[in-house]
């Protein structure tokens, strides 16, 4: 049994930011990451980040990992980062079990920050399980982590930021993107991303859905169709595309399994991506000393995940008695940054969601 003041689960942008702020306040941190390397989804983000200077705007995600990890060194509190470490459960007696490189360990933390991120949603269409139908994250992993093309010709389903960015990344890797489609009646992602891939000759078709993946043992073709106001297919508009990959980028849902198991209260909040654990201003859930940050608290951009991580890190450390004269001011500035990031029209969905969750003022 290992006793630690603060356990952080997930070394993505939120978890790394939380570790930095907590250790800065003098709190020792154990940070567990399921993957073999830290950074979460940042390791696949070859594009430059939006946001402002504080969230490393204009730096590529792949480079932000090093910055975030570098910040956790030489602080008053010690940050121990373990990779290949999957948390199995947060149990009622406060014990957290983890599979650390194949060995089961038990950890007794005084506080926990859950920063487990999200998982990819999928779609139900005939043939949706054929090899070649991949989540956008999978395509990114193959290309940007392992340097492997997922195929030669891609249909992208989803014109949100992920769909647009991954389309762009596919083209950067030399893969042809046949079309980007989205069932909504507007492009969901940032329009600068859309313009960028339009310039490369990729059509974006709104009010279109994928009807089927065709192929005997792998994807050989995709059937797409325009939909009407009732979201019903207009059969005359059916098109068959020769593609070997159908990339599904239809959104993310918070990966909150550990929190449900532990008994945290949650609400189904559609604009935040699904069931979201409730939390207070300090990112603490309905369970004493269990905090959340990042996509697990509602799907947003990495920039807000980092700020939420910092907030949770400061707040959790403070709760455990690690405080500096700046603590309250730091929390205020995190909240102000979050308000800024969510202030514009593109933050409207997040604001609605957070209002439903009762956490946005």
């Amino acid at each position, binding site marked *: 049994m290992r006793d630690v003041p603060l356990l952080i689960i997930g070394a993505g942008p939120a978890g790394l930011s939380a570790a930095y702020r907590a250790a800065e306040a003098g709190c020792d941190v154990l940070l567990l990451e399921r993957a073999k390397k830290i950074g979460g989804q940042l390791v696949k983000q*070859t594009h430059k980040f939006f946001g402002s200077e504080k969230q490393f705007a204009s730096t590529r995600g792949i480079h932000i990992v090093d910055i975030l990890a570098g910040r956790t060194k030489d602080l008053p509190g010690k940050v121990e980062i373990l990779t290949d470490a999957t948390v199995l459960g947060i149990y009622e007696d406060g014990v957290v079990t983890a599979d650390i490189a194949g060995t089961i360990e038990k950890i007794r933390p005084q506080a926990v920050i859950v920063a487990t991120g999200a998982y990819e949603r999928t779609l139900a269409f005939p043939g949706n399980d*054929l*090899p070649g139908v991949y*989540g956008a994250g999978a395509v990114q992993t193959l290309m940007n982590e392992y340097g*492997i093309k997922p195929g030669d010709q891609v249909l992208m389903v989803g014109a949100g930021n992920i769909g647009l960015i991954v389309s762009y990344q596919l083209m*950067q890797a030399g893969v042809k993107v046949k079309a980007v489609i989205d069932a909504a009646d507007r492009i969901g992602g940032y329009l600068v991303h859309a313009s960028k891939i339009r310039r490369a000759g990729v059509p974006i078709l709104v009010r279109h859905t994928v009807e089927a993946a065709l192929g005997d043992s792998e994807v050989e073709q995709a059937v797409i169709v325009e939909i009407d106001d009732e979201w019903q297919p207009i059969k005359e508009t059916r098109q068959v595309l020769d593609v070997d990959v159908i990339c599904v980028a239809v959104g993310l849902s918070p990966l909150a399994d550990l929190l449900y198991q532990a008994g945290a209260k949650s609400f189904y909040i559609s604009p935040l991506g699904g069931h979201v654990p409730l939390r207070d201003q300090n990112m603490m859930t309905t369970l004493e000393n269990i905090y959340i940050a990042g996509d697990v608290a509602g799907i947003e951009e990495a920039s807000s995940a980092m700020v939420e991580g910092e907030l949770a890190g400061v707040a959790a450390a403070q709760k455990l008695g690690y405080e500096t004269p700046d603590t309250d001011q730091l929390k205020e500035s995190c909240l102000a940054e979050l308000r800024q990031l969510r202030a514009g029209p593109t933050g409207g969905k997040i604001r609605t969601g957070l209002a439903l969750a009762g956490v946005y003022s």
Partner: protein
Amino acid sequence: MNRIEHHPILTFPEKRTLTFYFDGKALSGKEGDTIASALHAAGVRVLGHHFKSHRPRGFYCAIGNCSSCLMVVNGVPNVRVCVEQLEEGMDVRSQNDKGVLP
């Protein structure tokens, strides 16, 4: 080969080649590959067939969430090959049933 040789942003340094066996056939992957990435690089996307529907199976998430990429690795069934590191000489086989415990 589906490896990206040139990329405007990323560099993929040359890594040691690893030989492994897929359904008895020798294939090569690179150090740092997962079993699934090495198979993809070699053009193998059908990793097995579902035990009930017998439909072909590939991965969906590539990060260990969806459990759609189960294969028999060195005789052990139900290994998620998207997160299992490739090793020299590995015996990787398609799984078309629920798996037989070694």
